[in-house]
């Protein structure tokens, strides 16, 4: 029932406005473990269960999670777990195992994955670019957690984690960025290399493979030890600001150089979404990326961007099926997805020239 509540909830960050032209969302993740207990990947099943229940009991007592959701993966249907992944509330790894659980705040801003690679993965996710505010929330949550549970910490190595790539601060700060300008300009490889060389990872929409559907990327820090949280955040902040500028430069140049051809490209994507009878997930995402760009540039009213963002999530395979009410095969999903898009775009005006 709880996943249904999450889907129905108006507080849903995916529906809430606040995403920006380039940065869709800001995320802070902290890896924490209970002192004196084997990590989830090495613990025996009964130990894992005991750890999970202990963590959950401590979490539901925190004010932040009052009236929140507790979801034990073993008890959730496959589709419901996939919905949580598509909303970035839990990772694929957590959803695919049986030992994990997620505790999610009422407003879906804060979530804690229990028994992922580490005992606890705290996550704060907010629409738009709000590194400072997101960090402050994470810090509060971390303090509350440390007061409730004995965390594994070493004075020399910091927070002890299962994987050496997380030890120290356990901090992964990231921004989800929409980069259609840089992608269309063929500059993404260059940008990725530059970010990699300066210690930042670039991943796709759900963290999978190299191909980023919908021109959406996750940029995050890689180093967690030997740097203070403050410096990690500053470093990411510096690059995201730079990336946003680069993206706008690329967009302006495309609009200027290609003129009517550029608007035509966006308008064609609109036409496909508005009229197609079958749409695959990646096709829908790539077309929605163009619509989002159209909103950013004023080719469509900017106020429609939130609706486009909602469709990016509603077009995901598990969302299509859950909204439909039963599992669908690939063809069935493509048919249903196209219907969702046609219906949602019915009230959209025509794609026009950029506003400035």
């Amino acid at each position, binding site marked *: 029932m709880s996943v249904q509540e999450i889907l129905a909830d108006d507080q849903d960050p995916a529906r809430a406005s606040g995403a920006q032209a380039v940065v869709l969302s800001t995320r802070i993740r902290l890896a924490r473990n209970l002192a004196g207990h084997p990590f989830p990947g090495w613990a025996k099943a009964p130990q894992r269960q005991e750890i999970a229940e202990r963590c959950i009991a401590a979490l539901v007592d925190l004010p932040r999670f009052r009236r929140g959701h507790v979801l034990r993966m073993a008890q959730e249907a496959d589709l419901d777990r996939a919905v949580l992944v598509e909303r970035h509330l839990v990772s694929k790894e957590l959803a695919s195992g049986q030992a994990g659980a997620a505790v999610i705040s009422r407003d879906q801003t804060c979530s804690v994955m229990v028994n992922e690679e580490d005992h606890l993965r705290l996550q704060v996710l907010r629409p738009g670019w709000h590194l400072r505010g997101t960090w402050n929330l994470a810090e509060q949550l971390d303090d509350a957690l440390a007061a409730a549970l004995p965390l594994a910490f070493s004075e020399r190595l910091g927070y002890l984690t299962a994987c050496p790539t997380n030890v120290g*601060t356990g901090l992964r700060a990231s921004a989800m960025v929409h980069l259609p300008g840089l992608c269309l300009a063929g500059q993404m490889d260059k940008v990725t290399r530059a970010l990699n060389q300066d210690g930042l990872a670039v991943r796709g929409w759900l963290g999978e493979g190299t191909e980023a559907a919908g021109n959406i990327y996750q940029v995050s820090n890689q180093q967690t030890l030997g740097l203070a949280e403050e410096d990690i955040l500053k470093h990411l902040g510096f690059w995201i600001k730079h990336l946003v500028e680069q993206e706008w430069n690329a967009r302006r140049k495309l609009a200027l150089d290609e003129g009517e051809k550029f608007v035509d490209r966006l308008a064609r994507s609109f036409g496909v979404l508005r009229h197609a009878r079958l749409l695959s997930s990646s096709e829908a995402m790539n077309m929605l990326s163009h619509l989002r760009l159209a909103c950013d540039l004023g080719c469509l009213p900017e106020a429609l961007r939130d609706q486009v963002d909602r469709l990016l999530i509603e077009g995901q395979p598990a969302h299509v099926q859950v909204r439909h009410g039963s599992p669908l095969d690939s063809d069935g999903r493509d048919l249903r997805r196209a219907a969702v898009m046609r219906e949602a775009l019915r009230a959209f005006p025509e794609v026009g020239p950029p506003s400035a």
Partner: protein
Amino acid sequence: MSQPLQCSLCAEVATVHLSQVVGGKVTKVHLCEACAGKGGAVDPAVFQLADALQAPAAAAELTCPRCGFTDVDFRKRGRLGCPACWETFGGALSPLLLKVQPEVAHVGRAPAGTAPLGQLRHRLAAARAALATAIAAEDYEQAAKSRDEIAALEAALKPA
């Protein structure tokens, strides 16, 4: 028939085979679908880790007294067994850590009541700089304060 390759990061059968140039040399990585899906394919840190993990597996030389995890387990999984494993494997992991992390000393947040060594070291460096500045400015009151702070920090940093 050849043996199926094992994933460089866990014990699963590798189905994704990649090579990437890291620091001027070609690194080959074999990943299972799950690990590749985790973003391993585009994460240079993972490549470097996998590279270090591909050292030929030998008999276990280190065992965590707390959870029984061995260095052979680590080479197979790329993950440790429990928080206490860091005491057993921390030293052996230092070169590996330095491939993915800038420094092997925590300088960030800490639970109440603890002060990470890295933080103390940074404060010590700052106090020494403040002392030099104070002496140059002939501010002897500040210099005395900095000297006290340096002494306290040096005492705190002395290995027990």
